[in-house]
């Protein structure tokens, strides 16, 4: 089963390797990981998508908690949250598919952020499933490169983690 967790850690030298090393050393999966400073710049917020059964998830959360640099863990399993990922896609274009590409872009509320006579670069944001869907449509048209950020998530409702 897929789980999304946010990990708030000290924004310090080497902290990413502590977290990623924990996952590889203990044989936990990382499907995606994204990191950036939080509202409080001394804290980094990581969003990790992982998979495993309940016992594995329990161990992952406990093991992450055990790291000295971990300040807080938010496990979104069973919670209501907003999930967004961004993708940048470079597509080879010719006269015959230009319009089609722009149409797809439009439907998914993407943006063309770079154009050359031979390519479009498109930005799409949404839940990972939406990006998968765009990609399914674009793939046959000749995708040259894809960059995905991995999802970031935030809980729904008024409650917030200020330092996060």
């Amino acid at each position, binding site marked *: 089963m897929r789980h999304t967790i946010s990990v708030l850690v000290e924004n310090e030298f080497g902290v990413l390797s502590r977290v990623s090393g924990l996952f590889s050393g203990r044989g936990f999966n990382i499907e995606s990981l994204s990191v950036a400073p939080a509202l409080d710049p001394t804290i980094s917020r990581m969003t990790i998508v992982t998979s495993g059964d309940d016992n594995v998830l329990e161990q992952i959360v406990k093991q992450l908690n055990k790291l000295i*640099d971990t300040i807080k863990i938010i496990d979104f399993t069973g919670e209501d949250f907003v999930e967004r990922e961004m993708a940048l896609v470079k597509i080879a274009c010719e006269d015959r598919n230009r319009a089609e590409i722009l149409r797809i872009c439009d439907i998914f509320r993407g943006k063309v952020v770079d154009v050359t006579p031979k390519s479009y670069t498109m930005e799409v944001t949404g839940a990972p499933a939406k990006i998968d869907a765009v990609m399914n449509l674009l793939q046959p048209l000749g995708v040259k490169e894809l960059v995905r950020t991995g999802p970031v998530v935030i809980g729904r409702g008024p409650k917030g983690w200020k330092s996060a």
Partner: protein
Amino acid sequence: MKLTGSKILLECLALEGVETIFGYPGGTVINIYNDLMDSPVKHVLTRHEQAAVHAADGYARATGKVGVALATSGPGATNTITGIATAYMDSIPMVVISGQVPTPLIGNDAFQEADIMGITRPVTKHNYLVRDVKELPKIIKQAFYIARTGRPGPVVVDLPKDVQMDEATFEYPDKVELRGYKPNYSGNLRMIKKAASMILAAKKPVLYVGGGATLTDAHAELMELAELTQAPVTTTLMGMASFPTTHPLSLGMLGMHGTYYANMAVTNSDLLIALGARFDDRVTGKIATFAPNAKIIHVDIDPTSIKKNVRVDLPIVGDLRDVLKKLLKQLGEKENEVKTTVDGLQPWHDEITEWREKHPMSYKASKSVIKPQYVIEKLRELSNDDAIVTTEVGQHQMWAAQFFDFIQPRTFLSSGGLGTMGYGLPAALGAQVAFPKRQVIDISGDGSFQMNSQELATLVQYRLPVKIVILNNNFLGMVRQWQQLFFDKRYSQTCMELPIDFVKLAEAYGATGLRTSKVDEVEDVIKKAFETDGPVIMEFKVAREENVLPMVPAGAGLNEMVLG
């Protein structure tokens, strides 16, 4: 007043109450060594950095204090890794300081540079690279705090040479502030009340005790609980000596080479009370048949230990000693119920007595060849109750656990989790530094001894009268035993073809060497060794193909023991 980083480090150590550190000099710690000459902190020069760390570990296990080791960058630091991993697996409080190349050179493959942060990350509780001398006092304060609190463990502080030379005003912080680290000592009272009622309802309880009892110095509380509830006590290798093996309630060790009666008691119990133990695979055997009818209470300071390997009915996170105190209070308020429960345990005790009588811990004695178990029995008879025993890893380690009696806490120091050959001698060295007057005995095999035999020099130099027992079977015995039992006796690379003259080896270092291959000389050799000042090697030529029994083959259940 401004001080250099290296002086600040030594000031911090002194303020942490560190009396002795173990180490080995080199280019990136030369400033620290220079300042050591003017510091009250004493230094023991081992002959290998691995031994320095094991010595600090032995010191820590024997005293309960944080052990400290010091090594230079690159090869010095990489030599410490086995020692650090050993301490990590057994949760030993320790601070290891390594020199590092100057900050501007880090990452350049400079001379004697190694990425110690990267290498030690998975085998430390935490590690630090000090990049600014102003941070040093705070980091050392945190390092000691992290090492000794919660589930203890080793912390590495990597200290670049330029930081050692930079100056700063020295001020030692009096508080540690770590927003991400707040170990929970206090056991949840509601859970403890539940535990008390489970204990009162049990007909076949067993206390299963691990290293946590020693780490929290919970011996007195453990004794009180056992005597109050009359629950039999079995310990892991790490829990050895936290409950006297001579006590009528003691079942000895459980697990792969545990006693028949301990393993049968666990298998048949209806309530298993795990106290500071972590259900290691060497303890549980096949999980499916481990204590199948028991409810399990698990007390541990580390939440990751709970439900990692086995199902748990009642988890209690907290300091074992704190939990036991509260549990005793709960039970103390229910005197009558406790009495009824205890009275109800008679059939359980009878059952255990039957197992004890059916398969006691024993071996086939011999008049013609020295049985290794016999040597351990004689050592037990002839040594003091407060003697500290260290072991290496192999058959001799198991025989020590099976046939020696451990009466006082912190008298059995052995590498349980990592199983490090070469641990025992330097650990004995560290323990003897801590307790110069007590008997310290390293029980060793001929293979393990050769992994850190250079430490004889350290023993002689510092007049540390460690008594070394080598049970010489000219084999890597434990591996040979597996080859005999599971690989058709194909002894691939386990026969130590070259016989070593351990007596001469002792003499080469200025120590005393004694040897015998005769059963009737064993006692005399041991007596003579204990009467001799200074370090002594006792070499016993023992039965070469003796096996450690009983044994639960790897992957089998605790009730499927191969008996002697």
